[in-house]
Protein backbone atom coordinates (compact mmCIF):
# COMPACT_ATOMS: atom_id res chain seq x y z
CA UNK A 1 0.00 0.00 0.00
CA UNK A 2 1.49 3.34 -0.94
CA UNK A 3 0.80 6.81 0.47
CA UNK A 4 2.41 9.84 -1.08
CA UNK A 5 2.88 11.65 2.21
CA UNK A 6 3.30 8.65 4.46
CA UNK A 7 6.39 7.69 6.36
CA UNK A 8 9.31 5.91 4.72
CA UNK A 9 10.51 2.45 5.66
CA UNK A 10 13.57 4.02 7.28
CA UNK A 11 11.36 6.30 9.39
CA UNK A 12 9.29 3.32 10.47
CA UNK A 13 12.49 1.51 11.47
CA UNK A 14 13.47 4.57 13.50
CA UNK A 15 10.09 4.58 15.23
CA UNK A 16 10.38 0.86 16.00
CA UNK A 17 13.90 1.29 17.37
CA UNK A 18 13.65 4.60 19.25
CA UNK A 19 9.91 4.99 19.86
CA UNK A 20 9.86 8.59 18.67
CA UNK A 21 9.93 10.66 15.49
CA UNK A 22 10.33 14.43 15.29
CA UNK A 23 8.74 16.73 12.72
CA UNK A 24 10.19 20.16 13.33
CA UNK A 25 8.34 23.28 12.26
CA UNK A 26 5.75 21.49 10.15
CA UNK A 27 2.78 23.53 11.39
CA UNK A 28 2.63 26.94 9.67
CA UNK A 29 3.25 29.97 11.84
CA UNK A 30 -0.20 31.46 11.20
CA UNK A 31 -1.80 28.29 12.55
CA UNK A 32 0.47 28.28 15.61
CA UNK A 33 -0.38 31.91 16.31
CA UNK A 34 -4.12 31.25 15.96
CA UNK A 35 -3.93 28.27 18.31
CA UNK A 36 -2.09 30.27 20.99
CA UNK A 37 -4.36 33.28 20.59
CA UNK A 38 -7.42 31.14 21.18
CA UNK A 39 -5.91 29.64 24.33
CA UNK A 40 -5.04 33.00 25.83
CA UNK A 41 -8.35 34.65 25.02
CA UNK A 42 -10.30 36.15 26.54
CA UNK A 43 -8.78 36.51 30.02
CA UNK A 44 -5.11 36.43 29.06
CA UNK A 45 -2.53 35.24 31.56
CA UNK A 46 -3.81 37.14 34.56
CA UNK A 47 -4.40 34.15 36.84
CA UNK A 48 -2.30 33.81 39.95
CA UNK A 49 -2.09 30.01 40.11
CA UNK A 50 -1.87 27.08 37.75
CA UNK A 51 -5.21 25.78 38.98
CA UNK A 52 -6.81 29.12 38.16
CA UNK A 53 -5.32 28.96 34.68
CA UNK A 54 -6.75 25.49 34.14
CA UNK A 55 -10.12 26.59 35.50
CA UNK A 56 -10.22 28.96 32.53
CA UNK A 57 -8.58 26.69 29.96
CA UNK A 58 -10.86 23.72 30.62
CA UNK A 59 -13.76 25.77 29.21
CA UNK A 60 -11.85 26.89 26.13
CA UNK A 61 -13.81 25.76 23.06
CA UNK A 62 -10.68 25.46 20.89
CA UNK A 63 -9.96 22.17 22.65
CA UNK A 64 -13.32 20.39 22.53
CA UNK A 65 -14.60 17.72 24.88
CA UNK A 66 -14.50 14.38 23.06
CA UNK A 67 -15.51 10.94 24.26
CA UNK A 68 -12.81 8.26 24.21
CA UNK A 69 -13.43 5.78 21.42
CA UNK A 70 -14.51 8.41 18.90
CA UNK A 71 -13.14 7.98 15.40
CA UNK A 72 -10.59 10.72 14.73
CA UNK A 73 -12.30 12.00 11.57
CA UNK A 74 -15.36 12.76 13.75
CA UNK A 75 -13.45 14.59 16.49
CA UNK A 76 -12.85 18.04 15.04
CA UNK A 77 -14.80 20.35 12.78
CA UNK A 78 -13.37 21.83 9.61
CA UNK A 79 -11.94 25.25 10.34
CA UNK A 80 -10.94 24.42 13.90
CA UNK A 81 -7.22 24.78 14.58
CA UNK A 82 -6.77 21.19 15.67
CA UNK A 83 -8.65 19.93 12.62
CA UNK A 84 -6.38 21.94 10.35
CA UNK A 85 -3.21 20.78 12.13
CA UNK A 86 -4.16 17.10 12.10
CA UNK A 87 -5.08 17.34 8.43
CA UNK A 88 -1.82 18.87 7.25
CA UNK A 89 -0.58 16.40 4.59
CA UNK A 90 2.60 15.55 6.49
CA UNK A 91 0.69 15.05 9.76
CA UNK A 92 -2.12 13.07 8.20
CA UNK A 93 0.38 10.85 6.39
CA UNK A 94 2.32 10.24 9.58
CA UNK A 95 -0.81 9.33 11.54
CA UNK A 96 -2.01 7.04 8.73
CA UNK A 97 1.37 5.30 8.57
CA UNK A 98 1.30 4.45 12.27
CA UNK A 99 -2.34 3.91 13.27
CA UNK A 100 -4.32 3.95 10.03
CA UNK A 101 -6.82 6.22 8.31
CA UNK A 102 -9.43 6.36 11.05
CA UNK A 103 -7.64 5.91 14.37
CA UNK A 104 -9.47 5.86 17.67
CA UNK A 105 -9.33 8.98 19.81
CA UNK A 106 -8.25 8.18 23.37
CA UNK A 107 -7.83 11.60 25.00
CA UNK A 108 -6.18 14.95 24.58
CA UNK A 109 -4.83 17.53 26.99
CA UNK A 110 -3.24 20.93 27.10
CA UNK A 111 -0.10 21.03 29.24
CA UNK A 112 0.86 24.43 30.63
CA UNK A 113 4.21 24.91 32.35
CA UNK A 114 4.61 28.30 33.94
CA UNK A 115 7.57 30.54 33.25
CA UNK A 116 9.96 31.49 36.02
CA UNK A 117 9.54 34.85 37.71
CA UNK A 118 5.87 35.22 36.93
CA UNK A 119 3.43 35.65 39.73
CA UNK A 120 1.79 32.38 38.72
CA UNK A 121 5.06 30.52 38.85
CA UNK A 122 6.12 31.85 42.24
CA UNK A 123 3.05 30.35 43.80
CA UNK A 124 3.50 26.89 42.32
CA UNK A 125 7.15 25.89 42.99
CA UNK A 126 8.70 24.94 39.68
CA UNK A 127 10.02 21.39 39.60
CA UNK A 128 10.53 18.94 36.79
CA UNK A 129 8.11 16.07 36.37
CA UNK A 130 9.34 12.59 37.24
CA UNK A 131 9.98 10.16 34.43
CA UNK A 132 6.96 8.01 33.76
CA UNK A 133 5.23 5.86 31.14
CA UNK A 134 1.72 7.07 30.33
CA UNK A 135 -1.47 5.17 31.19
CA UNK A 136 -0.67 1.83 32.82
CA UNK A 137 1.04 -1.49 32.10
CA UNK A 138 0.20 -2.21 28.48
CA UNK A 139 1.31 -5.60 27.15
CA UNK A 140 -0.11 -5.19 23.63
CA UNK A 141 1.89 -5.71 20.47
CA UNK A 142 -0.40 -3.18 18.80
CA UNK A 143 0.47 0.34 19.85
CA UNK A 144 -1.08 3.74 20.36
CA UNK A 145 0.70 6.94 19.43
CA UNK A 146 0.89 10.23 21.26
CA UNK A 147 1.35 13.44 19.29
CA UNK A 148 3.07 16.30 21.08
CA UNK A 149 2.39 19.65 19.42
CA UNK A 150 4.56 22.61 20.44
CA UNK A 151 2.88 25.78 19.11
CA UNK A 152 5.72 28.04 20.21
CA UNK A 153 9.51 27.77 19.89
CA UNK A 154 10.90 25.78 22.82
CA UNK A 155 14.33 26.68 24.19
CA UNK A 156 16.37 24.50 26.55
CA UNK A 157 15.50 26.84 29.42
CA UNK A 158 11.78 26.34 28.82
CA UNK A 159 12.01 22.72 29.93
CA UNK A 160 10.59 20.98 26.90
CA UNK A 161 9.51 17.38 27.29
CA UNK A 162 12.32 15.05 28.31
CA UNK A 163 12.27 11.55 26.85
CA UNK A 164 14.37 8.39 26.85
CA UNK A 165 14.86 7.07 23.30
CA UNK A 166 14.43 3.31 23.06
CA UNK A 167 12.50 2.96 26.34
CA UNK A 168 9.11 2.30 24.74
CA UNK A 169 9.23 -1.50 24.76
CA UNK A 170 9.94 -1.78 28.48
CA UNK A 171 6.85 -2.89 30.40
CA UNK A 172 6.76 -0.78 33.52
CA UNK A 173 4.00 0.61 35.69
CA UNK A 174 3.60 4.35 35.05
CA UNK A 175 5.47 6.34 37.73
CA UNK A 176 7.26 3.31 39.15
CA UNK A 177 10.29 4.58 37.22
CA UNK A 178 10.23 7.96 38.99
CA UNK A 179 13.46 7.08 40.81
CA UNK A 180 15.38 7.26 37.53
CA UNK A 181 16.32 10.92 37.65
CA UNK A 182 18.75 10.88 34.75
CA UNK A 183 19.54 8.33 32.09
CA UNK A 184 22.46 8.46 29.68
CA UNK A 185 21.15 9.50 26.27
CA UNK A 186 18.01 11.25 27.56
CA UNK A 187 16.85 14.01 25.28
CA UNK A 188 15.03 17.29 25.90
CA UNK A 189 12.72 18.79 23.30
CA UNK A 190 14.22 21.99 21.88
CA UNK A 191 12.41 22.94 18.71
CA UNK A 192 11.06 25.68 16.48
CA UNK A 193 7.41 26.71 16.72
CA UNK A 194 4.99 24.32 15.08
CA UNK A 195 6.92 21.14 15.82
CA UNK A 196 5.31 17.77 16.31
CA UNK A 197 6.80 14.79 18.07
CA UNK A 198 5.15 11.40 17.83
CA UNK A 199 5.77 8.96 20.67
CA UNK A 200 5.06 5.24 20.93
CA UNK A 201 2.71 4.94 23.92
CA UNK A 202 5.41 3.29 26.02
CA UNK A 203 8.10 5.95 25.71
CA UNK A 204 9.42 7.12 29.09
CA UNK A 205 9.14 10.87 29.43
CA UNK A 206 8.41 13.83 31.70
CA UNK A 207 8.03 17.59 31.59
CA UNK A 208 11.14 19.64 32.21
CA UNK A 209 11.38 22.53 34.65
CA UNK A 210 10.57 25.82 32.97
CA UNK A 211 13.38 28.21 33.90
CA UNK A 212 12.52 30.78 31.24
CA UNK A 213 10.22 33.77 31.64
CA UNK A 214 7.73 32.37 29.12
CA UNK A 215 4.85 30.04 29.83
CA UNK A 216 5.16 26.86 27.79
CA UNK A 217 2.19 25.25 26.05
CA UNK A 218 2.01 21.68 24.83
CA UNK A 219 -1.00 20.02 23.26
CA UNK A 220 -1.01 16.22 23.42
CA UNK A 221 -3.38 13.77 21.75
CA UNK A 222 -3.40 9.97 22.06
CA UNK A 223 -4.64 7.82 19.17
CA UNK A 224 -5.08 4.06 18.89
CA UNK A 225 -5.39 1.83 15.83
CA UNK A 226 -8.72 0.50 14.63
CA UNK A 227 -7.15 -2.15 12.40
CA UNK A 228 -3.88 -4.12 12.20
CA UNK A 229 -0.96 -1.72 11.81
CA UNK A 230 0.51 -3.67 8.91
CA UNK A 231 2.33 -1.97 6.02
CA UNK A 232 0.45 1.32 6.34
CA UNK A 233 3.41 3.46 5.25
CA UNK A 234 5.20 3.99 1.91
CA UNK A 235 6.47 0.44 1.93
CA UNK A 236 7.55 0.06 -1.69
CA UNK A 237 11.21 -0.32 -0.66
CA UNK A 238 10.53 -2.75 2.18
CA UNK A 239 12.62 -5.94 2.15
CA UNK A 240 12.10 -8.18 5.16
CA UNK A 241 13.97 -11.28 3.99
CA UNK A 242 16.96 -10.26 1.86
CA UNK A 243 18.50 -12.91 -0.43
CA UNK A 244 21.83 -12.40 1.29
CA UNK A 245 21.51 -11.17 4.90
CA UNK A 246 24.44 -9.16 6.14
CA UNK A 247 27.16 -11.10 7.97
CA UNK A 248 27.17 -10.64 11.75
CA UNK A 249 30.04 -10.16 14.21
CA UNK A 250 32.65 -10.69 11.45
CA UNK A 251 30.90 -8.01 9.46
CA UNK A 252 31.21 -6.84 5.86
CA UNK A 253 31.94 -3.08 5.74
CA UNK A 254 30.73 -3.00 2.13
CA UNK A 255 27.28 -4.35 2.98
CA UNK A 256 25.07 -1.25 3.31
CA UNK A 257 21.63 -1.63 4.88
CA UNK A 258 20.33 1.58 6.51
CA UNK A 259 17.11 -0.04 7.75
CA UNK A 260 19.01 -2.88 9.44
CA UNK A 261 21.46 -0.36 10.90
CA UNK A 262 18.58 1.64 12.34
CA UNK A 263 16.82 -1.38 13.82
CA UNK A 264 20.03 -2.59 15.45
CA UNK A 265 21.26 0.77 16.78
CA UNK A 266 21.76 0.42 20.53
CA UNK A 267 20.93 3.23 22.95
CA UNK A 268 23.73 4.32 25.29
CA UNK A 269 21.71 3.45 28.39
CA UNK A 270 20.97 -0.16 27.47
CA UNK A 271 22.50 -2.69 29.82
CA UNK A 272 24.95 -4.97 28.04
CA UNK A 273 22.73 -8.03 28.13
CA UNK A 274 19.32 -6.37 28.14
CA UNK A 275 20.25 -4.35 25.07
CA UNK A 276 20.15 -7.58 23.11
CA UNK A 277 16.68 -8.31 24.42
CA UNK A 278 15.66 -4.84 23.25
CA UNK A 279 16.78 -5.81 19.72
CA UNK A 280 14.68 -8.96 19.90
CA UNK A 281 11.65 -6.99 21.06
CA UNK A 282 12.15 -4.46 18.27
CA UNK A 283 12.24 -7.31 15.77
CA UNK A 284 8.97 -8.70 17.14
CA UNK A 285 7.42 -5.27 16.59
CA UNK A 286 8.98 -5.17 13.11
CA UNK A 287 7.36 -8.51 12.29
CA UNK A 288 4.00 -7.11 13.42
CA UNK A 289 4.09 -3.97 11.28
CA UNK A 290 5.62 -5.68 8.23
CA UNK A 291 3.22 -8.62 8.44
CA UNK A 292 6.13 -10.99 7.88
CA UNK A 293 6.34 -13.60 10.68
CA UNK A 294 9.84 -14.59 9.52
CA UNK A 295 11.34 -11.10 9.28
CA UNK A 296 14.67 -10.84 11.08
CA UNK A 297 17.85 -8.81 11.24
CA UNK A 298 21.23 -10.19 12.27
CA UNK A 299 19.76 -13.61 13.09
CA UNK A 300 18.50 -12.61 16.54
CA UNK A 301 15.10 -14.29 16.25
CA UNK A 302 15.96 -16.99 13.73
CA UNK A 303 18.65 -18.36 16.05
CA UNK A 304 16.38 -18.81 19.07
CA UNK A 305 13.57 -20.21 16.93
CA UNK A 306 15.70 -23.01 15.45
CA UNK A 307 14.04 -25.95 17.18
CA UNK A 308 15.55 -28.56 14.92
CA UNK A 309 14.27 -31.99 15.68
CA UNK A 310 10.96 -30.93 17.13
CA UNK A 311 7.83 -31.88 15.19
Amino acid sequence: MGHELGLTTLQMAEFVARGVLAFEGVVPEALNARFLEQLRAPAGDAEKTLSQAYSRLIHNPSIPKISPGTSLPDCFQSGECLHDILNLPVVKGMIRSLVGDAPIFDHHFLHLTLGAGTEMQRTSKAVSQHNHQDSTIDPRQAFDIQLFYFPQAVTRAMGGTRYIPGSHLRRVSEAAIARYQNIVGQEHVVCPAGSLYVFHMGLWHGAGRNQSTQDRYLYKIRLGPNAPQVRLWNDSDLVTQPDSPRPIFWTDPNHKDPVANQLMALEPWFEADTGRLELINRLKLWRYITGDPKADVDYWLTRVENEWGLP
Partner: protein
Amino acid sequence: MAARQKVLVLYLATSALDTPVVGWAQYDGLGGSKPMTGDEDVPPYKTGVDALRDGWRLIQASPLVSHVSGEEFRTDYLKYEFFFEQWHSIEPKL
Protein backbone atom coordinates in the same frame (compact mmCIF):
# COMPACT_ATOMS: atom_id res chain seq x y z
CA MET B 1 26.87 16.11 66.69
CA ALA B 2 23.93 15.41 64.42
CA ALA B 3 24.35 13.73 61.04
CA ARG B 4 22.44 13.66 57.78
CA GLN B 5 22.46 11.15 54.95
CA LYS B 6 23.10 11.66 51.25
CA VAL B 7 22.00 8.92 48.87
CA LEU B 8 23.37 8.10 45.44
CA VAL B 9 21.70 5.53 43.18
CA LEU B 10 23.67 4.27 40.21
CA TYR B 11 22.39 2.07 37.42
CA LEU B 12 25.20 0.17 35.71
CA ALA B 13 25.62 -1.59 32.39
CA THR B 14 26.15 -4.97 34.07
CA SER B 15 26.11 -6.51 37.54
CA ALA B 16 29.81 -5.60 37.95
CA LEU B 17 30.62 -2.44 39.88
CA ASP B 18 33.43 -1.56 37.48
CA THR B 19 31.15 -1.13 34.46
CA PRO B 20 29.71 2.13 33.09
CA VAL B 21 26.94 4.16 34.71
CA VAL B 22 23.81 4.30 32.50
CA GLY B 23 21.50 6.10 34.93
CA TRP B 24 21.58 7.83 38.30
CA ALA B 25 19.68 9.64 41.04
CA GLN B 26 20.75 11.66 44.04
CA TYR B 27 18.97 12.71 47.24
CA ASP B 28 20.43 15.20 49.68
CA GLY B 29 19.39 14.86 53.32
CA LEU B 30 21.46 17.93 54.19
CA GLY B 31 19.24 20.10 52.08
CA GLY B 32 22.14 21.82 50.41
CA SER B 33 21.08 20.77 46.93
CA LYS B 34 17.84 19.70 45.32
CA PRO B 35 18.53 17.18 42.56
CA MET B 36 15.56 16.58 40.29
CA THR B 37 14.67 14.61 37.21
CA GLY B 38 16.42 15.65 34.02
CA ASP B 39 18.82 18.06 35.71
CA GLU B 40 22.05 16.47 34.47
CA ASP B 41 23.01 14.79 31.22
CA VAL B 42 26.46 13.60 32.34
CA PRO B 43 26.77 10.95 35.09
CA PRO B 44 28.51 11.98 38.33
CA TYR B 45 30.81 8.95 38.02
CA LYS B 46 31.90 6.79 35.12
CA THR B 47 31.55 3.53 37.07
CA GLY B 48 30.38 2.28 40.44
CA VAL B 49 33.96 1.81 41.56
CA ASP B 50 34.62 5.49 40.93
CA ALA B 51 31.88 6.28 43.44
CA LEU B 52 33.52 4.00 46.01
CA ARG B 53 36.82 5.77 45.49
CA ASP B 54 35.10 9.09 46.14
CA GLY B 55 33.90 7.98 49.55
CA TRP B 56 30.46 6.57 48.83
CA ARG B 57 29.52 3.47 50.84
CA LEU B 58 27.64 0.72 49.00
CA ILE B 59 24.57 -0.33 51.01
CA GLN B 60 22.48 -2.31 48.50
CA ALA B 61 22.83 -4.02 45.12
CA SER B 62 20.05 -5.52 43.05
CA PRO B 63 20.13 -9.34 43.00
CA LEU B 64 20.42 -11.42 39.85
CA VAL B 65 16.99 -12.90 39.21
CA SER B 66 16.17 -15.99 37.17
CA HIS B 67 14.16 -15.38 34.02
CA VAL B 68 10.57 -16.56 34.16
CA SER B 69 9.79 -19.24 31.59
CA GLY B 70 7.96 -17.69 28.66
CA GLU B 71 9.05 -14.18 29.65
CA GLU B 72 12.75 -14.49 28.85
CA PHE B 73 12.76 -11.56 26.42
CA ARG B 74 10.68 -9.21 28.52
CA THR B 75 12.38 -5.97 29.55
CA ASP B 76 11.15 -3.55 32.18
CA TYR B 77 13.02 -1.78 35.00
CA LEU B 78 16.71 -0.89 34.95
CA LYS B 79 18.38 -4.08 35.98
CA TYR B 80 21.60 -3.25 37.86
CA GLU B 81 20.76 -0.83 40.65
CA PHE B 82 23.28 0.12 43.35
CA PHE B 83 22.50 2.27 46.39
CA PHE B 84 25.30 4.26 48.04
CA GLU B 85 25.29 6.54 51.06
CA GLN B 86 27.37 9.19 52.75
CA TRP B 87 26.87 10.58 56.23
CA HIS B 88 27.71 14.18 56.97
CA SER B 89 27.94 15.85 60.35
CA ILE B 90 26.02 19.05 60.83
CA GLU B 91 26.12 21.72 63.48
CA PRO B 92 23.15 21.46 65.83
CA LYS B 93 20.75 24.38 65.74
CA LEU B 94 20.99 26.42 68.92
